[in-house]
C-alpha cells in the first residue's frame, strides 16, 4: 500500500519551546493533580484556600483548571500538602508554568473560534480519541485538498489567505498522529461520508487513498458504518470522546455544531455517549473489513 499520508500530511512538528498540549488541557491536568494531592493530605478546600491567601472557591477554580496559576500559589499548596523538594513537585510546577504560556496554535488565533480552542487543547493532550462522523472525514484524517473543500462549504466568501490558514491549522493538528508517542484515534464513519463527494472526484479519490494509508497505522482505527446496518443511536452531528493520558482527568465529550460546540465532562453525560460509541463500534464493519471496503470503493 502506498504511504500516501507521508506525502499528504504537511504537518510540521511544533517549533522549539512551543507548547504542544495547550494551556486548557494542562491547567486541567495540574488542577486534577492538585486536587488528588489535597485529598490525599486530607486538607479541606477552605484550609487550602487560607494557605494561599484566598477562599475555598479559588481552590475549586484552580482544581477545575479554570484559572491561570500563580506559581507562588501552586508552590505554597504543594508545601502545605507535604510535597517537598522532589521530582513530583518540580514536575507540577513546570506544568503550571507551561500552562501559562501560549500554545503553538495561538499563532492561528484569528481563525480559531472561542468554542473550538479548548478542544484543540484536549485533542493535543489526548491519549485516545473516539469519534463518530456522519458527514465528513474527521479533521485529523483529512487531506489538505479535502479540508479546503470542506472549509469553503461553510465559508463561501472567505478570502484565500484565510482559507489557507485554516487548512494549515488543520494539517498541523494532525501532528498528534505522527509524533513519537502518537494519539490513538478510533473513528467510526458513516457510509454517507464516502458516498457524497466533497470538492471534486480527484479530491475525493486522494482523500480515500490517504484514509487507507492512515487507517493502516497501528494507532489509527477506522470502522465504516454501512447503510445496511440500519438505524443507529448517534442522533445529530459528529461526536468525539477524548480520553487523556492522565488517569485523574475525566473523559470529555465534544459535539461540534455549525456555530458553537458542546462539551460534556459529567460522568452521566460522558457515559451516555460512551455507550453510543460502543454500540456503533459493534454495529460497524470491523477495521480490517473496512480497509477492504475502502480499497474497493477507491
Amino acid at each position: 500500500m502506498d504511504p500516501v499520508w507521508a506525502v499528504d500530511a504537511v504537518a510540521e512538528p511544533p517549533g522549539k519551546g512551543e507548547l504542544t498540549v495547550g494551556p486548557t488541557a494542562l491547567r486541567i491536568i495540574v488542577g486534577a493533580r492538585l486536587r488528588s494531592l489535597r485529598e490525599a493530605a486530607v486538607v479541606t478546600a477552605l484550609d487550602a484556600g487560607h494557605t494561599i491567601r484566598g477562599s475555598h472557591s479559588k481552590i475549586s477554580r484552580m482544581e477545575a483548571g479554570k484559572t491561570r496559576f500563580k506559581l507562588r500559589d501552586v508552590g505554597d499548596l504543594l508545601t502545605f500538602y507535604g510535597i517537598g523538594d522532589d521530582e513530583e513537585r518540580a514536575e507540577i510546577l513546570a506544568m503550571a508554568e507551561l500552562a501559562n504560556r501560549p500554545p503553538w496554535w495561538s499563532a492561528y488565533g484569528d481563525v480559531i473560534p472561542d468554542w473550538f480552542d479548548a478542544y484543540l487543547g484536549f485533542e493535543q493532550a489526548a491519549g485516545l480519541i473516539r469519534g463518530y462522523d456522519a458527514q465528513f472525514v474527521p479533521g485529523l484524517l483529512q487531506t489538505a485538498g479535502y479540508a479546503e473543500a470542506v472549509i469553503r462549504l461553510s465559508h463561501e466568501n472567505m478570502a484565500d489567505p484565510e482559507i489557507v490558514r485554516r487548512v494549515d491549522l488543520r494539517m498541523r493538528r494532525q501532528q498528534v498522529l505522527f509524533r513519537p508517542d502518537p494519539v490513538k484515534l478510533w473513528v467510526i464513519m458513516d457510509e454517507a461520508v464516502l458516498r457524497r463527494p466533497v470538492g471534486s472526484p480527484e479530491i475525493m479519490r486522494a482523500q480515500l487513498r490517504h484514509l487507507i494509508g492512515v487507517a493502516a497505522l497501528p494507532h489509527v482505527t477506522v470502522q465504516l458504518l454501512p447503510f445496511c446496518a440500519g438505524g443507529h443511536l448517534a442522533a445529530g452531528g459528529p461526536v468525539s470522546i477524548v480520553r487523556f493520558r492522565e488517569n485523574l482527568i475525566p473523559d470529555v465529550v465534544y459535539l461540534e455544531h455549525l456555530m458553537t460546540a458542546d462539551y460534556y465532562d459529567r460522568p452521566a453525560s460522558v457515559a451516555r455517549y460512551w455507550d453510543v460509541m460502543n454500540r456503533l463500534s459493534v454495529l460497524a464493519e470491523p477495521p480490517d473489513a473496512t480497509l477492504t471496503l475502502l480499497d474497493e470503493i477507491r
Partner: protein
Amino acid sequence: MTGHLVSSGDQPIPGIDSSVPHSARVWNYWLGGRDNYPVDRAAGDNYRAAYPRIVDVARAYRYFLARAVRYLAGDAGIRQFLDVGTGLPTVDNTHELAQRIAPQARIVYVDNDPLVLAHARALLTSTPEGVTAYLDGDMHDPASIIDAAGETLDSTKPIALILNGVLGHVADYEEARSIVHGLVGHLPPASYLALADSIHSSAAHEEAGRSYAKTGAVPYTLRTREQIAGFFDGLDLIEPGLVPIGRWRPDPSPFNAPDVDACAAIGYKP
C-alpha cells in the same frame, strides 16, 4: 465511486447487554478502568463488599500475565501466543508484553463478547513487524478456536496458550478439563500453557460469587488447587510449579505481594 458496502453476514446484530454484569467489564472496573456500565460497577462493589480482596486478586492476575509473557517471550523464546479470554484492553496487554521483547511476535486474542472484540480490534494493535488477530470464539468449542487460530499461527512452531482467570466460566470441572486438554492437545511439541485461576478458600469468597451469579451474570466457579493441578496433566511444570499466583517468579521487591486466593503455573508440552 463504485462498490457496495455489504454487511459481513446475515447473523443477528451482536448486542451489548448493559442490563446484566459482564465479567470483562467488572474486571475493568476492579482494575480502575472506565469501560464499564453502572450494572458492572454495582456488581463489582457488591462483590468487593463481601470479599474485599477481589481487587488484589484482579491485580495479581494482571501481574502474573506480565511475568508469564515476559518469561515465555524471553527465556522460553516463544513467538506465538493464543490468549483465550482477552478481556477489555488495559495497560500491558499480552501483545505489548510479548512484542516489547520480540516485535515479530504473533498474538491471537480470543473472546466471544462483541464489546471486548470491538475494543480489541481497535486498540490491541500490533507492531508493524508482528501480528495481532482477533477471534470471535467460544472456549466451549476448542477445536474451532485452534482451527481459526491456524490462520495466524504456524501450527508447526511452539505456541503459548494463555488461560488467565477464564476457566471458572465453565461450571463443570470435567468440561473445563476437557477444554484445556482439547486446546493443549492441538498445540505442537515444545508449546506452553500459562494458566491462573481462583481457588475457594473462604466462605466470603464463595458468598461473593453466589450473589454475583444471582445478578444474571455468567457465574465464576472457584476450584481447588488439586483441580487446577489437573489442568496441567501431561505437561512438565516450569519452576516453581503450581503456586499462589503472586509467588510465581515474583519480580524482586522489598515487599511481598499479598497472598490472594488464586494460583498459577506454566506447563511445558514435551
